[in-house]
Structures are given as structure tokens and as C-alpha cells.
């Protein structure tokens, strides 16, 4: 029987806790991708993985002269599963984490990764805490956050001069905070709040709330719901023609995935979006072409943001010429992406939140070869009006 002295054990544990961020040069650059391939947001993980695959493929599958090896795990849209999978991946010596989809998973992964000084690249989760109250030296978000998406709603409503609005937000902190921000910003501008409702997440029927919105005299309803809840609201609103009387919009309400589920009811619904495949710039056109060639489909916002974040990160890592993870972090927090798929993106060193122009779009009928229903970008907001000042 092998005996281990207490001193040896303590020394071993201590060495784990203070593991250096630099290791001997490995055979490959391992990315630990933890996303949702099943559960409520299962469809998003597949898009994110595809976006990353294009980013890796675009650079010949290599960074720092070594092959890139992306390992993928499904968190089943549950934070406790994300922690298990992340712990397992750390024992496989990943150099970084990518993910997750839902914010609770991302926050859990960030806590684990910080102890091991592993960078985390976030391109989907929107909770403000990721780059706010719970920010980490090793976590970066290259996509928009909840604040910027809600501020896009505010900017749009101010621009079109709406006088009276109704709010429907899921009874969940992030969603309620989002609606509070919209209400406070527009209230200060003299916009009347006709009513507000906070149905629980997973509410299967919004018909009564839709009827309240209809009777409220509001010109627009701000719907702070996502996923199944957002689809159900839009679909049921369409069945009584709500969009003919009250404009339906939200910070994260509509994209091509939701349109497919809501069908014709989605037409005319407006939303902040993070990315769109029709954006006219050289990098985006190249990305869309590669994506369509590989997957015979147009990239959705999650694929676009995953591609953009990973391509940016890998460029910075490669340029650092080092396997020292702290050097990657130092370089990335001061970097700018002049030619991102969304235009100029700037990483804020103070909170590791990238800022970029906000997109405002409407669901319209698409002409072939585009999807039958697609988003049309109507407006663009500069970063300084939709992102909070860096604290």
C-alpha cells in the first residue's frame, strides 16, 4: 500500500491552488467548449459550436503553431451539469473555456476557471453580472449584454417617439431588471407606462396578458421574455392580430430561430439583435460563405457571435507568441477588433465587456435563398448610448 504523508498531501494541494498560468508547451491548444446541446436552450449550442468550427478552420486549425483541439460538452441547460463537465475538462488540461449558453452556467464556470487561471470566452450569456458584479480577470464577453439590449429598446422607442408602453417581463431577476431599466429610462423621458406584468418563466399561455395589453391603449409592448416564453407570446399575440394595433418588441425577443417557431405571427415583431448574416462587411461575407458551404444554412446570431469572439481571441493568442495565459489575458483586455462581423469591437479593460454598435431589426419575409422569415436590420445604435460607463 502506498502511503502519502500529510506534508506531501498539503504540498500537493497547495501546488494545485497556486497553479501557474503558464505550462510547458503542449502538443495542442485545447478549447473546452461547454454549451447546451439539450434542454430548454439545446438548439443554441449547436450554432455556437458551428461558429467556433469556422473560426478554427479559417486559420488552418492552428494557433501558436499547434493544432487546435476543441472538446465539446453538453450542460443540458443546467448550471450544476456545467460545473461537473468543466471540472472534468480541467483534468484534460484545456487551455481555455468557451461558453456557456445560460448565464448561471457561465457564472459557475467562471468561478472554477478563475481558480485555475483559465480564460473563459463568453459569446452568448447576457447577464450583466458576468462583466459586472461577478467579473473575473480571466473572463471576457465579446457579445452584447442584457443592459445594452434593453438600452437598444429604449433608444428605438425614443427615436420613434412612442408615448405609451406596456411591459411584460418574466418573473426572474435579469428580466425584471431589464424591464425596470426600460421603464426608468423612458419614464424619465415622459413616456407613460400603461401596465406591466411579470408571469413566471415557463408560462404556457399569455392570452389573458395579451388581452390586457390590447385594452391598455399602449402603442407598444416591450416583451422581456426569451426562448419558449418569447415564442409562445409572439405566436399567441399573432392569433388575435395584436401586432396590427400594438407594436411588439423586446431586447432579445426575435431572431431566425424564433421566427421559425412563431411562423407568420412573427412578421413585424422588432427586437435588438446581436448579429445578422446580412451585415455588409468583408469579414462577415467571408464568414457567411464558409458557414453556408459547411452547413448549408445561414448563421444565426449565436453562430455569428461565437465565430467572431473565437476568431478574435485566437488572433490575440497567436499574436502573443506565448503559452502564458496571463499574457493572453493582458493582451485581450486591451485589444480592438477593427473588422469584426459587427463592425468595430473594443474590449473594455475595466470589466472585460466588448462594446460594439447595437442592431435593431424587424421580422420580415425573406426572399430566396434567404430563410422564409428573416430579420431586417432597421437601425444601428452607437456603443456609447447602449453600454453603461465602465466601472
Amino acid at each position, binding site marked *: 500500500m502506498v502511503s502519502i504523508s500529510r506534508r506531501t498531501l498539503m504540498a500537493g494541494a497547495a501546488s494545485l491552488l497556486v497553479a501557474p498560468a503558464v505550462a510547458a508547451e503542449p502538443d495542442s491548444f485545447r478549447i473546452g467548449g461547454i454549451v447546451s446541446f439539450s434542454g430548454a436552450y439545446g438548439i443554441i449550442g449547436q450554432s455556437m459550436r458551428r461558429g467556433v468550427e469556422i473560426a478554427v478552420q479559417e486559420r488552418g486549425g492552428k494557433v501558436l503553431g499547434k493544432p487546435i483541439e476543441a472538446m465539446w460538452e453538453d450542460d443540458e441547460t443546467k448550471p450544476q451539469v456545467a460545473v461537473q463537465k468543466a471540472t472534468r475538462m480541467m483534468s484534460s488540461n484545456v487551455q481555455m473555456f468557451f461558453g456557456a449558453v445560460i448565464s448561471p452556467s457561465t457564472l459557475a464556470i467562471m468561478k472554477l476557471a478563475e481558480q485555475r487561471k483559465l480564460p473563459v470566452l463568453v459569446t452568448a450569456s447576457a447577464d450583466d453580472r458576468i462583466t459586472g458584479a461577478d467579473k473575473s480577470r480571466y473572463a471576457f464577453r465579446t457579445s452584447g449584454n442584457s443592459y445594452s439590449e434593453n438600452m437598444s429598446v429604449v433608444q428605438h422607442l425614443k427615436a420613434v417617439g412612442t408615448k405609451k408602453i406596456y411591459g411584460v417581463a418574466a418573473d426572474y431577476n435579469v428580466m425584471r431588471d431589464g424591464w425596470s431599466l426600460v421603464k426608468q429610462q423612458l419614464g424619465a423621458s415622459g413616456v407613460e407606462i400603461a401596465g406591466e406584468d411579470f408571469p413566471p418563466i415557463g408560462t404556457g*399561455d399569455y*392570452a*389573458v396578458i395579451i388581452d390586457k395589453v390590447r385594452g391598455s391603449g399602449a402603442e407598444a409592448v416591450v416583451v422581456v421574455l426569451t426562448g419558449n416564453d418569447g415564442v409562445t407570446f409572439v405566436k399567441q399575440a399573432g*392569433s*388575435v392580430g395584436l401586432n396590427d394595433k400594438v407594436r411588439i418588441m423586446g431586447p432579445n425577443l426575435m431572431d431566425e*430561430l424564433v421566427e421559425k*417557431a412563431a411562423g407568420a405571427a412573427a412578421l413585424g415583431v422588432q427586437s435588438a439583435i446581436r448579429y445578422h448574416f446580412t451585415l455588409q462587411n468583408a469579414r462577415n461575407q467571408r464568414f457567411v460563405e464558409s458557414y453556408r458551404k459547411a452547413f448549408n444554412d445561414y448563421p444565426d446570431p449565436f453562430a455569428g457571435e461565437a465565430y467572431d469572439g473565437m476568431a478574435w481571441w485566437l488572433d490575440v493568442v497567436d499574436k502573443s507568441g506565448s503559452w502564458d495565459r496571463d499574457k493572453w489575458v493582458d493582451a485581450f483586455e486591451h485589444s480592438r477588433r477593427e473588422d469584426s462581423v459587427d463592425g468595430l469591437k473594443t474590449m473594455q479593460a475595466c470589466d472585460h465587456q466588448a462594446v460594439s454598435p447595437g442592431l435593431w431589426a424587424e421580422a420580415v419575409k425573406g426572399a430566396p435563398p434567404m430563410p422564409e422569415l428573416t430579420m431586417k436590420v432597421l437601425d444601428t445604435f452607437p456603443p456609447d448610448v447602449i453600454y453603461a460607463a465602465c466601472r
Partner: protein
Amino acid sequence: MTTLLIGLSLGMLLLLLSAGLSLIFGMLGVVNFAHGGFYMLGAYMGFQIAQWTGNFWLALVISPLVIAAAGAAVEVLTLRPLYGRDPVYQMLLTFGIVLLIYEATRTLWGLEYHSIAAPPVLAAAVHMGSIEISAYRLFIIGFGALVAAALFVVLERTPMGVLIRAASANSAMVACLGVDVAKLRTGVFAFGTGLAALGGVIAAPISPIQLEMGFAILIDCFMVVVIGGLGNIRGAVAGALLIGLIRAFGARYLAQWIDVLTYSVFVLVLLTRPRGLFATAERHA
């Protein structure tokens, strides 16, 4: 009035599911966790048929028949060998079937959302004074009432209904009288799963078709069945309407308290009438 109509439509949709669940429990004594899975499968199958034919009505007829056949196969192959054993085995089995249905559906139809449009004749909103409601919801109310009436007539007024009720009360005695109880059980399970699939197709034009759709509604179904009394169809009708109306009026006046209200009623019934609101006293010799 709009709220009342919406509540009735929710109740009728719940009834389609909970009636099958209640029948299966009453006849087979099985707490069928797979019921939500069959509901989801019915919606996906309906979507597929609507895609192929472009006809909602065909989807409404064919999908429940296909799923009922699948239900019969499941009963014969998996549940039948377990009737004599501890009910825990049956519960575990139905739980396993849920996972099987989930994975099969994911493989066949993928992760993306799907949708069925309401038939054109029911696509518009109906205006009656200050009431505005989608025509499709009125259809759900009418269709649900028809199904409830048909169930009542079959169970209470036909020889088949007498057999089912007798077998629910004492299957061994019915078997002694020469009735093939095994076939009867298969028929009831198939009918119950067919009803679940019917609910799935009916729900599809007002809800997204997605893999999680069976989980959330199953909780409401179990509440309906418990409130009404396990195995009691009249109770299921009353329970479904009660839950539907609580959800609708809750959304009208206290949206964030809908779940608390619904679960409170459920707990209250369990505390005061643990055998359900419509349980009848058993007579013993």
C-alpha cells in the same frame, strides 16, 4: 368574459391530456410519466403530417392514431410483463420511456422549434362586443367539450364503458367472467396515449413545438388528476376546468402569482380531500 373563455380553452386542452392519464391510472393502476412524452410526440407527428399534406385536419386525425398504435405496442411489450410487480417498476419504466421518446424525437426532428399554423378558417380573431378572442381558442373549447361528452357517453352508457369501469374496480373478477382483460388494458392505454397526442396537435397552433413541451404540462395534468380523483373522468373534467380558470384569472389579476395560486389549490385539495374532489366512497362487504 374574455378571461373566462381563455380559461375554458386552457381547461379543455388540459382535459384532453388528463382524461387519458386518468383512464390509464384507473384501468391499469399505472402512474404514467410518459404521458407528456406522448403529448410531445403527437405534436411532432402532427407537424410532420401537416408538412407533408399541408392539412391541419389530417394531422389532427392521423397523428393520434399513429401514437395510439405506438402506445399499444409500448403497453404490450413493456408494461404487460410488469403488472404483477411492485408499482415502482411501472413508474420507473414509464420514466425510461420518457427518455426514449425524448431522444428519438431529438434524433428525428432535431433541436429546432417547429410550428403548425391554425387552419385558415380559424386563423382570425373573433370580436363580440368588448370580447376579442382567437377563433382557434373557441374551437378548442368546442372540441374539448365534444371529447368530454363522448368520453362520458362511452364510459357511462355503453357496454364497453361498463367493462372498463368494472375492470378498473376489480380486473380479476372481470377476467373470471371471461373478458380478455389484457386486451382491454392495451386498448385503454392506446386510447389514453391517443388522447395525449390529440392534445399535442391541438396545442401546436398556440404553442411552439419543442422537446420540453411535455414536461411543463405534465405537472398541470397530474394536478388535474389528483384534484379530480385518480381514475375519475368526471373529476378530471372538473379539475381541468378549475386549473384552466385559475390560470386565466390569475394571469388577469396576479400574473406573477399564477403558479403559487395553482399549487395552493392543489395542496388545499390534498389536505382536505386527499382522494380528490370527486372521489366516491368505496363500499365494502
